[in-house]
């Protein structure tokens, strides 16, 4: 897969996310805490039975925006290192869609930064999720309703899926 490093902490990959290798890359004798988040493909969403997902990613801006978010949060919160990877393409049930790992001297900073980074990855990066359901239907998550309403309704609705 495309691996992130500390100079390029946000990566997009079209192959399996290797959580084991990512964790090892964060090993650090001056860090006392590691917090990781993984988003997995769940078998249900909003009452429908999901069988697979497809992520579309606009790589140039997803990587740039991800790196910008990570740099901003890292500096403000005060952490050691951050790595993040988001999947592109088709995922099956149980697949890892996104991985974020944060190290810090003390645990509070790692928890705060990890949470803020995944929250922002989900709403600021140009990434779109198409769900395929057991009934044969499919759809872009959160897109149809928002776009067809065509009004400015703020972010509550747009970001309802997590």
């Amino acid at each position, binding site marked *: 897969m495309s691996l992130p490093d500390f100079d390029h902490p946000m990566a997009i990959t079209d192959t399996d996310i290797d959580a084991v290798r990512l964790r090892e890359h964060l090993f650090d004798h001056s860090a006392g805490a590691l917090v990781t988040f993984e988003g997995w493909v769940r078998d249900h969403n909003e009452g429908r039975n999901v069988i697979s997902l497809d992520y579309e990613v606009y790589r140039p801006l997803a990587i740039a925006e991800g790196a910008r978010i990570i740099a901003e949060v890292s500096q403000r919160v005060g952490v050691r290192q951050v790595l993040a990877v988001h999947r592109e393409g088709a995922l099956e049930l149980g697949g890892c869609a996104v991985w974020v790992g944060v190290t810090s001297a003390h645990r509070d900073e790692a928890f705060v930064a990890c949470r803020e980074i995944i929250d922002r990855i989900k*709403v600021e990066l*140009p990434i*779109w999720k198409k769900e395929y359901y057991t009934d044969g239907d499919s759809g872009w998550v959160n897109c149809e309703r928002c776009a067809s309403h065509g009004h400015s*309704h703020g972010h509550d609705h747009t970001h309802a899926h997590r």
Partner: protein
Amino acid sequence: MKTVTVNYFALFRDRAGCSSEQVSTSASDALALFTQLRERHGTDDPRGHCKVAVNDVMADWDIEIQDGDVVLFFPPVAGG
């Protein structure tokens, strides 16, 4: 008239039936260009849930559009 390249993503691409097209426009800003193309992407007002980037930089909807720009229209995102 200016000529710009418009790129559509996800739902917008499905609706427009293409991922990229050349557009002639007199639109002064990105919002006006988006409105001009409403029959293509199917959305009246993008503000608050759609995003725009110009020449691979995220932009506000009032960004000025210039001849030769590459304009990216992003429907609501859903990463993770």
